């Protein structure tokens, strides 16, 4: 049967099992929004800004593991999606971003709201398509979803000219997708896996270093087995938090710039680093010449171009973490490394995350500890900045997909829209949004759809009236010259929340933290915003200054 291109698109999305589309309507996408009007199988979620749409699609994808879908019009609609697309790309999140494009005969003429979105997004997406004819749509949708969620996941862009949306074509959806130039490697080379097992057997001071790739590959179970089988201490990166329970004695917690001293000292002392789905990011390694100087490295990653990029690797294994760990688990046993384990336990005991509690000012770390007490099972969506690091340090994550943040791109404004996507993806879970005063106001407009849908989001603002992380760097490295970081002129977020139709509370005293969190728990018919006014100049410690080695960590207290 002949259908309009826009209808073919929507039917294709249904075939891919799409539940939600996050979008903002506009001229060149109107036929698609028209096809979604009254649609029941796919729910259209109107966001207030296209950046919110792409972050919401991203948040949905992070909690469900399914492909998130964002939709926008041409030109400014498309360029507004860009930050969200780049965010998803850096964290390898499966997403399909659909943009309307001007009529084919206008393309290249600087038409109204025309932008070469394929050109703009080329370096920040896994792949992209410009559709100029209705009969291409079905095949492209099938390919886009296949590419977005296989191999190393990532965002795929589908840019559809308005006439291709309007014209009719036969709807024939491909049953399978076979792209001759795209065959991601799933299984690791058995010889390499055997080599890795042999190195693990010999090592005296081995450590596991797991990243977001474990979460993306749904390989947490296999990672837990490997850790428990070998009893090797493990550090999980900011992107992987929850892949291994941080409450376990073998967990050394997060490594890197604001990671635990234990994990950082372990890298420096280790003789074997087993990296799984982690990419030796500069925020983890510090000065590369001082990084794990005595350790051999095993690197398991789906992306061959990630291996050896920053750090020379002794045993590279290209493959899916789940498949490789399953094989590796068959070849390992408990490691005979008691002295090393004792050393790790000593570091853990001696250097926990710590802060100085005050009686008259709310300490940000205290708020996170209290949030953890009340919401230990919740999905936590953090934004970017000091509060993100405190949340990563003081909330003990135990499950994969429980912790969402923009780790790679570090996108301020990510969390509120991502929390909306997360709540829709997991309607039975409590979703806690830990935000900063700087990041919250960057996408505050998305409180509107959250109120409209009565989403019971817990939005907790760690408000220090500063662009805190930048202020911390200015304090430490720029002689306290606080350039463009003073946010004391922000509005009253509690009152503002009420203006949006949400519940808004303000907490200024340590004694009020607990009752406010209690009160928030009881509000289930819409979002609640608590503005925690915290110590203005508290810093995030420990800290490895940029360019320093992990051994040179500044511990902060004592």
């Amino acid at each position, binding site marked *: 049967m002949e259908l309009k291109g826009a209808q073919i698109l929507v039917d294709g999305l249904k075939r891919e099992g799409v539940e939600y589309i996050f979008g903002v309507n506009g001229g060149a996408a109107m036929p698609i929004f028209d096809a979604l009007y009254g649609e029941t199988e796919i729910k259209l979620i109107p966001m207030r800004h296209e950046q919110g749409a792409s972050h919401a699609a991203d948040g949905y994808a992070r909690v469900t593991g399914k492909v998130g879908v964002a939709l926008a019009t041409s030109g400014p609609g498309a360029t507004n999606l860009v930050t969200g697309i780049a965010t998803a790309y850096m964290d390898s999140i499966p997403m399909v971003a659909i943009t309307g494009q001007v009529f084919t005969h206008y393309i290249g003429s600087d038409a109204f709201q025309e932008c070469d979105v*394929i*050109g703009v997004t*080329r*370096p920040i997406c*896994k*792949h*992209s398509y*410009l559709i100029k004819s209705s009969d291409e749509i079905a095949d492209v949708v099938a390919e886009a979803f296949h*590419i977005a969620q296989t191999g190393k996941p990532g965002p795929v862009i589908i840019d559809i000219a308005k006439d291709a949306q309007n014209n009719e074509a036969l709807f024939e959806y491909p049953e399978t997708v076979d*792209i*001759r*130039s*795209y065959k991601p490697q799933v299984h690791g080379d058995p010889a390499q896996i055997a080599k890795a097992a042999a190195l693990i057997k010999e090592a005296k001071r081995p450590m596991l270093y797991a990243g977001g790739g474990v979460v993306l590959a749904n390989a947490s179970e296999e990672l837990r087995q490997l850790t428990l089988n070998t009893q090797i201490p493990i550090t999980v990166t900011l992107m992987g938090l929850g892949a291994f329970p941080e409450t376990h004695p073998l967990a050394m917690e997060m490594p890197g710039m604001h990671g635990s001293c234990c994990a950082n000292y372990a890298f420096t002392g280790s003789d074997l680093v087993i990296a799984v789905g982690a990419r030796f990011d500069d925020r983890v390694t510090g000065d590369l010449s001082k990084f794990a100087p005595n350790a051999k490295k095993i690197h398991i990653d789906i*992306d*061959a*171009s990630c291996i*050896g*990029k920053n750090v020379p690797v002794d045993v590279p294994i290209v493959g899916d973490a789940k498949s490789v760990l399953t094989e590796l688990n068959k070849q390992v046993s408990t490691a005979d490394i008691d002295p090393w384990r004792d050393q790790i336990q000593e570091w853990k005991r001696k250097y926990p995350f710590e802060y100085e509690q005050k009686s008259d000012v709310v300490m940000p770390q205290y708020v996170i500890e209290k949030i953890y007490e009340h919401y230990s099972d919740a999905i936590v969506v953090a934004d970017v900045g000091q509060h993100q690091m405190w949340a990563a340090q003081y909330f003990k994550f135990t499950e994969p997909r429980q912790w969402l943040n923009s780790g790679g791109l570090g996108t301020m404004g990510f969390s509120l829209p991502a929390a909306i996507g997360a709540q829709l993806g997991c309607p039975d879970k409590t979703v806690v949004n830990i935000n900063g005063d700087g990041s919250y106001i960057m996408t505050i407009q998305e409180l509107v759809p959250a109120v409209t849908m009565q989403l019971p989001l817990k939005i907790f603002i760690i408000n220090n009236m500063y662009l805190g992380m930048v202020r911390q760097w200015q304090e430490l490295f720029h002689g306290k010259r606080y350039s463009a970081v003073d946010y004391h002129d922000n509005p009253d977020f509690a009152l503002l929340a009420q203006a949006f139709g949400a519940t808004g509370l303000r907490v200024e005293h340590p004694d009020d933290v607990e009752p406010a969190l209690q009160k928030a728990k009881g509000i289930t018919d819409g979002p609640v915003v608590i503005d925690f006014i915290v110590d203005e100049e508290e810093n995030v410690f420990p800290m490895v200054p940029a360019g320093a080695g992990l051994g040179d960590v500044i511990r902060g207290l004592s």
Partner: protein
Amino acid sequence: MNSEERHIFSVLVENRFGVLARVAGLFSGRGFNIDSLNVAETHDKSISHITLVTHGDAQIIDQIYQHLNRLIDVIEVTDLSTAGTHVERELVLIKIATDDPQKRTEILQVAEVFRGRVIDMKPASIVLEITGDEGKLKAAIDIFNTYGILELARTGKIAMLRGSEKKE
């Protein structure tokens, strides 16, 4: 580790719009330079062959190889400089001023040495076609430069593995 080497990549890609931009963008985005680039359809209309000459240390060359492979539209990448012995050719068109007959005769004699062909001749200029490897073309261009080159265009290098040598 830091010694720079020239490498010739043979890249088979889907013959569709935007693919060249993806390949080129991979270089520009990382600050790698392309020394020479040739793209054309193969005997299979759906596939284009890119011959790309670049340089860098071992790590950069490895990154280029891996990132080319990562592009969805790239079917196959071969680093000809490491995959076996290969043949390479380039074609150059040179237009030279021939303001007096004496000079024209000389140019024709030099062209003969390089097995060049005359593909256009006008009273005041001549266009030569010369093929060869890099060394031969450089020698030819150096000599014709002394006669006054008016215009020069070259195809960029094209290359393939010898005989039945398998691509890796």
